[in-house]
């Protein structure tokens, strides 16, 4: 007689680790609703200001997104496996755009369903043009009336939008697996009929390689904006609406500014402009009359101090080494002036290749190192995002 107490193994159980089924095949697994697997109606909840953290996207991912500041062995191994994009003339040409003017930095959460095909990019351009035209016409109505009241002129501060264009900057990336950068530009016309650029934004993710299980999120965490505030705000609104992302202004704390300046000092040659640290005292002292204290150090001197802390100039500094650099500069300043740098706020740093402030204003002075600068800023965004 056959033994019916033990269940018969399935014919499909060819793999050794397959355990016999205890539940029937026809029984459906209960669906657990999470923001990652939610349907279209719940997708917007994932983009709330404080509800979305980068770690949730990668909770089930196979590989963690690369970060320049990662210190663990696994991440170092992942970094080694990634292939860097070799410098080329086309990359240098695309980087020259970044050296024109001052950029406002924003951090962007992963963009949902961004497709880089030619026809999709054209449809995005049309959608952006329509959205910005409507927004600016509404603003013009308010602004023209206000300006007319103040100055008595009929046509005050009016902006006319012609078109918006979106293009890919395929060489503007650090690693081969990074998503190519996206340039968004809004063109307008002045009252004399001349075409001008009202606003230009560049979405980039240098060093932001990562995969998510759904495969629909694109990592472009750094947004650089340049142009009129009205056109920029409408463009950011369109991005948030179309790709269900959150764009917020990037504020860099003092500690990370020291990290940036210590790393950027490695790139410039010994001759040339030096390194500037701009400190701002507390509100009470600013009200009394001292707005800022600027410490300028020559490039060769800064490099010599850095070499005593970090011997290999080709590799990045760790957080500890950047902290030691900061403490060394503070100790020297205290010895000469008996003023504690810790009691001051570091509001901006300038190196021969770039200038950045704590409220997210960036000026790139050297196109040759633009990709490295963007890579470090992307690393700062990862670090600030992990804290939430």
């Amino acid at each position, binding site marked *: 007689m056959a033994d019916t107490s033990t269940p018969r193994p399935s014919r499909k159980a060819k793999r050794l680790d397959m355990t016999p089924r205890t539940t029937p095949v026809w029984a459906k697994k209960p669906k657990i609703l999470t923001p990652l697997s939610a349907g279209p109606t719940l997708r917007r909840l994932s983009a709330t200001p404080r509800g979305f953290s980068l770690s949730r996207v990668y909770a089930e991912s196979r590989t963690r997104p690369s970060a320049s500041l990662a210190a663990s062995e696994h991440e170092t191994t992942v970094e080694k496996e990634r292939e860097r994009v070799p410098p080329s003339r086309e990359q240098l040409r695309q980087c020259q755009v970044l050296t024109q003017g001052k950029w406002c930095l924003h951090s962007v959460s992963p963009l949902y369903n961004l497709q880089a095909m030619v026809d999709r990019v054209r449809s995005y351009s049309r959608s952006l043009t329509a959205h910005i035209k409507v927004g600016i016409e509404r603003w013009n109505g308010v602004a023209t009336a206000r300006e007319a009241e103040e100055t008595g002129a009929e046509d005050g501060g009016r902006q006319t939008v012609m078109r918006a264009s979106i293009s890919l900057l395929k060489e503007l990336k650090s690693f081969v697996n990074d998503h190519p950068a996206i340039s968004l530009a809004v063109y307008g016309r002045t009252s004399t009929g001349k075409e001008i650029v009202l606003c230009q934004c560049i979405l980039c993710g240098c060093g932001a390689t990562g995969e998510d299980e759904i495969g629909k999120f694109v990592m472009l965490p750094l947004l650089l904006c340049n142009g009129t505030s009205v056109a920029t705000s409408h463009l950011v609104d369109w991005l948030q609406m179309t790709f269900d992302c959150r764009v917020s202004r990037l504020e860099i704390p003092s500690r990370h500014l020291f990290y940036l300046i210590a790393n950027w000092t490695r790139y410039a040659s010994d001759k040339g402009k030096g390194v500037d640290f701009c400190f701002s005292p*507390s509100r009470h*002292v*600013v009200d009394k*009359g001292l*707005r800022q204290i*600027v410490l300028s150090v*020559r490039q060769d*001197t800064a490099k010599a101090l850095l070499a005593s802390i970090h011997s290999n100039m080709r590799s990045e500094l760790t957080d500890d080494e950047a902290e030691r650099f900061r403490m*060394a500069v503070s100790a020297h300043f205290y010895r*000469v002036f008996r003023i504690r740098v810790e009691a001051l706020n570091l509001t901006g740093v300038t190196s021969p290749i770039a200038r950045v402030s704590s409220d997210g204003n960036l000026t790139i002075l050297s196109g040759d190192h633009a990709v490295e600068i963007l890579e470090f800023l992307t690393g700062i965004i990862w670090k600030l995002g992990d804290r939430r």
Partner: protein
Amino acid sequence: MNVEAIRAVLRRFKKDQIPVLLERWTFADAFRNIDISGSKQRAVQVLAAACLEHGMEEEDLSEADVIYRQLHVNSRRWTALRILKKHSSSCDEAQLSIPEVLEDKLSSCLVQFYNNSICAVRLRDSMWLRVAILEGVPSVYYLIYHPHSSLLLTSNIKRAHQKFIFHSFLQVVAGHKLKELSLKGKSAQSLADLVLRRRSQGNFSAFRFNQKDCNPLVRRKRRKQPVRVSHPHIVREDEEKAKRRSTYVKKTFGDNKQPILEKVEFQVEARFVSNKHTGYHGPFPCHVRFEGSSVLDGIRALVEDRAAEPPLPAHLAELHTSSRSYFLIEEKRQTQDEA
């Protein structure tokens, strides 16, 4: 005179400064009580018409320009210079306090080099000079001279004209050389205080402002009752330290407002001493710039705010008596005996 040129000068004044102009302007004696009510545009038109009616000339318009510069003294950056004189040289300083005499003397010395127009206006204890070079590219410069002192403040002067203007001025005051002090700023009065009243800055300014010697016949104020703390266990931890800090601030900087300096620069040539964070020991030349609307008040606030630790080094604590805004800080050189 061109009415547009008159209007252009008068339009620069703010509406509430026009009565001050009428008070100080010697040309406006004839129409001092003119009606300037209404909008600024109307006031300018009325004044311009009155000026044309009374036969205004270029010198009168220059005087109005100097008065404008006196009311907007912060719009120019002033450089402080010291007049060096030889023991044997002397000039009649009392005569140099009369605007017309100073104008004639300087104009006659400078005419050897350039066609010029000089206008002098007295303001309290200083003589304001407007030097207009009429040859080549017309240029206008301003000089502030304090008679009976060795101080001269100048606005930015082109190199091509500087040598000749300084030479002419030295001839007038019987000076030997003009030495540039490392002192620049926008507040002319503060620069004059820093140079002419060096010894009465900081805590000693209380004597200058008559705050120390009180009148014995004035009734003394009643003593304030001590504030009673509601909770007896609330005790300030660092009360002694805070008291020492406030005593130090009062002794070093005093209670009065400090002279206004917008920028103070230090070229630091001190060596970097190795510490627990780095083994680097060597030269560390750097440049430090303090900027703000009033740097000296800001440094006092840094000590009160506990960002700076007393006692401050001499180059910060004695900044108000140094008469300079640019310093070079070097390591103390060891003498042979000390070595």
